[in-house]
């Protein structure tokens, strides 16, 4: 098998290139003749009384993408963190190239040529890509570092794998897609043979997914083994060869991608058939204008003017979908309309009254609700229990005299948890303990407590499993039917096309196109997002 050298060197192990022809071999032969790059046996891990991984077996062979599928909380991330040494398993063994190894820390994992792109990136934000990658170097600590040498090696890798990213600026100044590329460069730099991608596409706009898949393709062509985690079945079917499905910490099935299909996988993951279709909801006509923006301009958190003059009317009872590549002003538009960011020019009107310079309280009082992209920090206070989080963005809590009536609040929160099927141990649990899907359901329940005039949803189903995502979408449609205007930011074309009454494309802080979803195509919207003209030519 592959020779592994202890020092990190720039050349990739090409010995394995002979085995790429394995792709032409029968799969059965492949399984019999080769040692897996990585083999897990009986991995078990509990957090308190909760069993996150229950005797999991997994084998990854060189040159193949092995997808791990499962709903939120099925134990995928835990398993990956065990492989990468972030968590210690309670029992079970890990073998690399047939040899049992002990992985007690990420340092051990790196030494055993395992690399991981975490779901939440593991980058030191104030440092450049070069410095982030230098951290991985395993040479003497006190010798002056040779930044130039590191830089040259990174540049070589960039050329080899066509990864174009700014490696000198602090990574916090890079977009999410770029940060992910820095993470990939980290893996390549350590020469990892087993590469774990934990939900890499959850944060990417569709165009960038393609370039990610291309990189993954190049890596497997070199004989590396890739573990790919995703909720998106199309992707999984497209790029993986083997699929392992996890449910509640157990492997329910391992199968070949060639014998899998969407419906079958959903059934395996969820344990039942679910309807993936959003019922048609476009028959009604939109009502009065509830919120409008005129010449709206705003700066992002780096103080760069990213919203450059937007005129927009949102009517009662319509869903306005916003498409755009990350960083083209959508977030600032949503935040300005939600009242959490002040406009630097232009005006915002609610029911015809100007509120541009008012505080978020005014927006809340005028029934504007906001489901932010960052559920854990902006949508909730992670260390507060659910019932206290229930009061966020609520300026008229139930009172007894001058005191908040917590008894009532807890009742309200408990009812919401019940009717929105939030899986939790109760209203006293800290929101930090909730999985993404459950937290989002809770935030949705809070936002729709009273039907708002305008509901602003930023990437509401990002990172959610199928069932939770469908639930959130249904709630958005319900709100619309109840007469609420909805502004929907999304990176998921399926979602935008099935939910929106109108689709608006933003590019460089301006609206560059408006289409009705039934009259356009994903391709056209994609071109607009990249700044191309509607006739298909890029400028």
């Amino acid at each position: 098998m592959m020779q592994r050298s202890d020092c990190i060197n720039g050349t990739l192990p090409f010995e394995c290139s002979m085995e790429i022809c394995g792709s032409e071999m029968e799969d059965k032969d492949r399984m019999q003749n080769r040692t897996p790059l990585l083999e897990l046996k009986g991995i078990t891990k509990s957090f308190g009384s909760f069993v996150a991984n229950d005797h999991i077996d997994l084998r990854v062979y060189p040159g193949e993408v092995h997808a791990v599928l499962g709903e939120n909380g099925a134990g995928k991330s835990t398993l990956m963190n065990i492989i990468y040494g972030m968590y210690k398993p309670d029992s079970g063994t890990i073998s690399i190239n047939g040899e049992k190894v002990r992985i007690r820390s990420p340092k051990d994992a790196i030494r055993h040529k395992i690399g991981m792109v975490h779901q939440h990136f593991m980058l030191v934000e104030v440092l450049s890509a070069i410095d982030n990658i230098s951290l991985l170097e395993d040479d003497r600590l006190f010798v002056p570092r040779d930044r130039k040498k590191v830089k040259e090696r990174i540049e070589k890798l960039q050329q080899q794998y066509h990864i174009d990213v700014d490696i000198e600026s602090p990574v916090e100044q890079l977009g999410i897609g770029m940060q992910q590329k820095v993470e990939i460069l980290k893996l390549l730099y350590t020469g990892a043979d087993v590469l774990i991608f934990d939900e890499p596409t959850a944060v990417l706009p569709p165009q960038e997914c393609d370039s990610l898949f291309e990189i993954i393709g190049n890596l497997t062509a070199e004989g590396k083994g890739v573990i790919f985690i995703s909720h998106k079945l199309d992707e999984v079917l497209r790029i993986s060869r083997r699929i392992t499905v996890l449910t509640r910490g157990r492997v329910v099935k391992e199968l070949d991608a060639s014998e899998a299909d969407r419906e079958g996988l959903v059934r395996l993951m969820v344990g039942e058939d679910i309807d993936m279709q959003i019922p048609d909801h476009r028959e009604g006509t939109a009502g009065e204008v509830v919120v409008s923006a005129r010449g709206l301009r705003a700066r992002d958190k780096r103080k760069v003017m990213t919203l450059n003059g937007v005129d927009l009317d949102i009517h009662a009872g319509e869903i306005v979908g916003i498409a755009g590549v990350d960083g083209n002003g959508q977030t600032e538009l949503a935040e300005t309309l939600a009242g959490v960011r002040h406009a630097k020019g232009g005006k915002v009107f609610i029911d015809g009254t100007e509120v541009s310079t008012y505080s978020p309280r005014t927006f809340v009082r005028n029934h504007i609700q906001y489901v932010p992209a960052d559920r854990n920090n902006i949508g909730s206070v992670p260390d507060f229990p659910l019932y206290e989080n229930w009061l966020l963005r609520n300026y008229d809590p139930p009172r007894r005299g001058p005191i908040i009536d917590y008894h009532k609040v807890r009742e309200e929160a408990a009812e919401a948890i019940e009717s929105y099927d939030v899986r939790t141990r109760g209203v006293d649990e800290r929101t930090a303990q909730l999985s993404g899907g459950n937290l989002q359901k809770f935030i949705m329940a809070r936002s729709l407590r009273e039907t708002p005039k305008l509901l602003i949803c930023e990437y509401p189903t990002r990172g959610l499993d199928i069932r939770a995502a469908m639930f959130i979408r249904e709630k958005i449609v319900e709100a619309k039917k109840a007469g609420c205007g909805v502004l929907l930011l999304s990176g998921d074309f399926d979602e935008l096309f099935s939910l929106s009454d109108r689709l608006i494309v933003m590019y460089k802080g301006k609206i560059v196109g408006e289409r009705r979803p039934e009259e356009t195509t994903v391709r056209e919207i994609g071109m607009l997002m990249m700044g191309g003209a509607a006739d298909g030519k890029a400028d």
Partner: protein
Amino acid sequence: MNEFLTAAFLIPLFAAGVRMSVPLILGSVGEVVAEKTGVMNIGLEGQMLIAALISFIGAYFTGSLALGILCGGLSGMLTALISAFWCVNRKQDQSVVGIMVNLFAIGFTNFLYRAIFGVRTDRAKVEILESIKIPVLSDIPVIGEIFFDQNILVYIAVLMAVFTLYVLKRTRFGLQIEATGENPKAARSAGVRVKPVRYFGYMFCGFMAGIAGAFLSCGIVGAYTENMSAGRGFICLAVTILARWNPVLSVLAALLFGTVQALQLRLQAMGSELPYQFFVALPYIVTLLSLMLFGWNIHAPKALGKPYNEEQR
């Protein structure tokens, strides 16, 4: 007013200012490193005080200033180890532990000093460090007298600041320190061992605070007096912020405070209508004002003060 502007007044003032800034330089260089690893060593004051006494005891009984100063450094480090254990291993609140250390230090030093030296009117004394004239440089008029006719710890303090900056900016260890203070989880995922790095932060800071304490008792006074650190450890915390976690800038900030302190002593000695407490308060007033004036737009290490829990989900 003219008497203030003569060379005879100003040169000794600035020379004393340089001396007074040394404990601040040492302490804040230590604190910069600790905070860069993500731990706030509020116990700096206590470590300095304990070291002032221990180094004095060491020097008094061994007759060697060098040994005394070493004892001071080690005692500071040992005291810091307590904080490190509570904050890094037991994940306790760093401010609370720091305040406890400071309160403990006051009682402990008072007790120990009386237990050893008793209550007497004639104070126990040791020789103080001699000043070393740097050849050539000390002959420069004014500058030479102010900067290059000082004791060895003054030079060491400045050299340590430069050396520390070098380690932070140019070595991989410095990078590990910065990563640990900014994002311990990311650091760990890149193979950095977070706990040892934070332990190092505490211990290095404790050692530097210890040398600073030793400088007070063995370096310039030659005796130990109750609570002789007198809040210098806290000023170090302010210096660290003003210097924006840069050890060399902290030398400059420390010089400012040191000079105010020297001035304050002289104003007191000259006698004035104002009560002496006003002058004693002067350095702290300057600290507050300067934080107000220059304390904006700063980027503290992101994980500063936050205990790191490896398996937290």
